[in-house]
């Protein structure tokens, strides 16, 4: 980088870029955005095509080749509504457990002083590095065989019930609340449950949204575990029934790609919409603190 003296003096005010550098940066960012978004655009286009068109022209909407038939086709093979309902119950159960029990644990870890607090927090960090593949077989044996929870919502929910990352995020937020607030309320005679409900919960509402977003994608998108516990089609979350369609039934359908992509749109849409609407709660610092602990 050879630079002239006056340029150097100007760049001491940091962020100034040369024109070429700005163009390079802009194109890198734009290229990235296209690479990330194009498959989603293509998913939507493909799901609306009556005849699958894989040529380059097929990447643009063609009014003569548009149909909603693929959505009807996939719905006749896998029941989209029952899939969505199952996904919803599975996700809702996990969210409820994580929010209620995770918040209680986060509060106890941040605000209350009790023996074993340090050890519990160390455990919380530790279980994040236990890989799921190690627990896969024993959990399958325990939940479907020993407890007989195969094909039940409880069986799907249990391994995801309390998200350790959520506990850490809640703890982080509770720690930021000034301790005097609690001292003052205790002097006024508030009990611990009153403190949690009246003071702590209202103050960590942003954390609540972050936790819900972060927890939502786990069960909604997960495939391997619900696939193992549900054998009955009527109990399967949408991700599982769509995957079964892709791996088994697709070959016997007239427009397998169209139907697959229609199912994919239905599966992806709720999450994408949720993350666009609440994007300001899904920012780097929260995620960073959650992962780093």
């Amino acid at each position, binding site marked *: 980088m050879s630079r002239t003296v006056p340029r150097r003096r100007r760049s001491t005010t940091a962020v100034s870029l040369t024109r070429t550098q700005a163009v390079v940066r802009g194109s890198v960012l734009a290229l990235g955005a296209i690479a990330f978004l194009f498959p989603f655009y293509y998913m939507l286009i493909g799901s609306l095509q009556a005849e699958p068109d894989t040529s380059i022209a*097929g990447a643009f909407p063609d009014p003569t080749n548009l149909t909603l038939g693929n959505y009807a086709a996939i719905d006749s093979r896998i029941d989209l509504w029952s899939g969505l309902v199952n996904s919803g119950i599975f996700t809702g159960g996990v969210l409820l457990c994580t929010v209620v029990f995770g918040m209680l*644990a986060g509060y106890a870890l941040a605000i209350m002083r009790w023996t074993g607090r340090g050890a519990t927090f160390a455990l919380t960090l530790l279980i994040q590095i236990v890989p799921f*593949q190690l627990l896969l077989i*024993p959990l399958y044996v325990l939940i479907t065989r*020993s407890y007989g929870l195969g094909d039940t919502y409880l069986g799907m929910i249990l391994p995801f019930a309390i998200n350790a990352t959520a506990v850490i995020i809640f703890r982080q937020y509770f720690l930021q609340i000034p301790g005097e607030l609690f001292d003052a309320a205790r002097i006024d005679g508030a009990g611990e449950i009153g403190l949690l409900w009246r003071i702590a919960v209202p103050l960590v509402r942003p954390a609540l949204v972050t936790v819900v977003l972060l927890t939502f994608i786990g069960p909604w*998108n997960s495939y391997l575990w619900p696939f193992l516990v549900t054998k009955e089609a009527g109990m399967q979350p949408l991700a599982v029934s769509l995957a079964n369609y892709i791996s088994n039934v697709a070959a016997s359908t007239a427009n397998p790609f169209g139907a697959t992509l229609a199912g994919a749109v239905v599966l992806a849409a709720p*999450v994408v919409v949720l*993350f666009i609407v609440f994007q300001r709660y899904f920012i780097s610092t929260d*995620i960073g603190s959650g992962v780093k602990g």
Partner: protein
Amino acid sequence: MSSSSIHAAAAAGATRRPAQPDAHGTRRRRLRKVLGPHPLGWLFSAPFLVFIAAIFAYPLGFAIYISFHDYFFTAPGVVVDQPFVGFDNYVRVFTDPKVLQSLGNIAIFVLINVPLTVVLSLVLAAALNSVVRFRTFLRVSYYVPYVTASVAVVGVWLFLFSGNGLVNQILGPLAPEPSWLSNASLAMPTIAFFVTWKELGFYILLYLAALQNVPKDLYEAAAMDGAGKVRSFFTVTVPGVRPATVLVLLLSTITGANLFTEPYLLTSGGGPNGASASPVLVMYQEGIEQGHPGYASAIGIVLVIAVLLIAFLQYRFAGGKER
């Protein structure tokens, strides 16, 4: 937080403490001595602790137990002889060509996915960190693949990378034969590329957080010394986000070792001829489809030990020293 309010609180705490011990007397005090000043903390954490015990601790021990036995699936309550077999399952892991192939596959995966993830996510995060316009739009569009179900995006990739899919149409005569996912030497790289694309948004967020902690005056000092943007990226940004880089290395390696959905769906069960089978896929086939959970658990334990070893090496060589 003003200092006067801290003093006030401290004073309140000081006056409160001697006022407490009284009525119920020693029993309560002894309870507090064992459980701490807020014994309710135990109660609040109890569901989480039970969860850790039931979903992590017990299954972990159980995994080790069944890996040393010839374990059978039985109906609840039925007692079957499940003999202790010592290290037999482990010996099988290291002699089974299927397992060895899957370990080799995952090595290819990690060699492509991890460096690509680190470089692309750092470059994109650094570029994103310095723009003002379209910032939100770009950030959201980068993490959309991360938040979407694998199953959903796998559908599009199958469409894009099929024999006469869009990618091959664009490549024209350059298209590989046989096509990407049915080509033994390209199937695993294509999966690695898919996973990089899908998970990148998460790592961009991690790097964005790390970039906020790089002191601004370091950039000013670098500029003062005549370093251009590119130079200061390498001398200030890259070392400044080193802890995040270690984290990205670890997490992307762990994700790689957990690979299942992508080979199961993209290459219909690790094809062609097991060229894209992952260890977790083999665990599923052996443990659940074939009914050898003992063997599958042994594969899982070997895999986890391997991952921990790699993670330790990454931590040592990618810069544990600074912290």
